[in-house]
């Protein structure tokens, strides 16, 4: 994650817990706000910005937003796996389909490479992490590497 020297940092303590859904506009807010209640930190980076939401339950969800306000990537790091429908919206469907089609890989990371959608779920008990992005939504000159 490259951050410009002129970092814009906004701390909205106690703000409404919210994160936008992958592929939708930044203003889209999750319906379920029960267990991600937390601190939303907005960071401006080269060619995109990100929201980092830290919750009291130890979850950190980061969403990556294009200059036009669309969420092109999300990542999480938490003692549990967040609800994928809240995080990914309609992209939860290919995740579920791929999960049902898994063979032979046991206990290892779960990876989905669908049409214009890339997803990885990793880690282990008490320490999960993962990320997802939509390649066609990546801002110009921004690498998928920033979603981590």
């Amino acid at each position: 994650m490259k951050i410009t020297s002129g970092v814009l940092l906004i701390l909205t303590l106690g703000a409404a817990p919210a994160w936008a859904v992958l592929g939708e506009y930044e203003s889209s807010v999750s319906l379920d706000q029960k267990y991600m209640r937390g601190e939303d930190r907005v960071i401006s980076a080269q060619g995109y910005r990100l929201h980092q939401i830290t919750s009291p339950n130890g979850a950190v969800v980061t969403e990556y937003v294009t200059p036009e306000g669309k969420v092109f990537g999300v990542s999480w790091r938490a003692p549990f796996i967040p609800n994928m429908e809240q995080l990914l919206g309609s992209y939860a469907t290919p995740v579920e389909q791929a999960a049902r089609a898994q063979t032979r890989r046991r206990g290892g990371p779960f990876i989905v490479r669908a049409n214009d959608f890339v997803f990885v779920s990793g880690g282990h008990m008490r320490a999960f992490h993962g990320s997802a992005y939509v390649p066609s939504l990546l801002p110009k000159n921004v690498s998928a590497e920033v979603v981590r």
Partner: protein
Amino acid sequence: MRLKRYSVVPLAGLLCVAASLFFVASCGGGNSNSSPPPNSNPVPSITSLSPASATVGAPAQTLTIAGTNFLSSSTVTYNAVAHTATYVSSTQLTVPLSAADLATAGSFPVVVTNPAPGGGASNSVNLTVSAPKNVVTLDVNLGPTNDYDNGLFASVEVCEPGSSTNCTTVPDVLVDTGSYGLRLLSGAVSGLTLPAVTDASGNDVQECVQFISMAYVWGPVVQADIHLSGESASSASIQIISESPQYPAPSSCVPTSNAQDSNSVSALGANGILGVANFPQDCGSGCTAASNGVPQYFSCPSGNCQITSVPTTSTQGQVWNPVALFSQDNNGVLVSLPSVAAGGAATASGLLIFGIGTQTNNALGSAQVYGVTDQAYFTTTYNGTQYSDSFIDSGSNAYFFLDSATLGNLDCPDNTGWYCPAATESFTVTNTGTNGTTGSLTFSIENADNLFNTGYAAFNDLGGDSGTSPSTDYFDFGVPFFYDRNVFVGIAGQTVTGVTNVPYGFWAF
């Protein structure tokens, strides 16, 4: 010696013959009340052995024999095989016992024999070599569903708390160094009545455990006595994976609304999971207050499942790594698996040994200790890039590392997500623990399509991808890493002699 003895023996014989005309009893062996005549060797006698007993697998050691009438010419047999004796005094001999002498359980007779003239064999005293009380057999096989690659299984005995008769032994439980606690399918313990663990409001506690595969297991937390070899965890919290759940799994735990559970043998590929990783509890402080909002422990009054608070206490608390509850050998485990040749093996078997540095069979020896983070990770460096979310996991059935693009497109044609190099390819990485330990490691990857075509269960060189780009990659050292190694898992907060500065536990190998 021989010449001298030759000259003495006839003399002694003559004396005996002469004497026997008057005192028959004074000649010949066996009468301990009579002193041997001059120049006749006494019969030896063993009073005790030190050690008096040993454990299977103990290292080579010296056996000290105490008794009487030992001679510098005394010979010793152990299990009817001659062993070179060292004469210390007329009341002490020593013999070296090799590791092979102590490799199998049994009672092995020790006998001292003095040579003629006179002489003869002592009484026989047994050295008892007993099976160690901290060892469970591990088997790598295809598991109960006949489709598990590199599945590492053990049998676990569970009993109703306090009972020695209402018990059942559950075979094919997956041994997992990547999770915490015992979880058993309901069908595997259906004959037992196991009391519920309840929360502060008196409601039965249910647990939902998520897998990174987007599956989960769900069911009540109950108390059971767990027996593994000679070790026991009494009234331990375990999870029952319900094959017919009383309540639907809560949506906060289910990753997607129609996600598939693993509440069956067919989905789990095992009868349960035995988690022996580095933390005592399976959640920790995140689950001690419902307000924390970690969707793992629930109670369901009126059928409405809500997150509940469950303490980290060893009774009526969270599910524990049972090893941490043992009265001894409770500071970790050693997983010891044999080597598996290139091309795989039909099956493999090894040992799960409890405790680290607590018995003769679990010494750290030359193993290097790598401290882990509060998330049980360490750092693996490959080609100059650091992957800080790396870990060792017997619940992963392969090396999962990097991504196909980074490695030059090693994707298998037949098996998605697996690596199929044209020729066996080796990778060298550097691992770094939080305590500063650094060590190099090399492993090999073979063509997974070819390995799977064997129909075997054990594969040393099996690998697949862990991420989608360098930023999400990590190294997950699965079952193949364990082959041909002794791998120790140290539990956080427990003492291991000689190990410091590892607050969250460690790996050692």
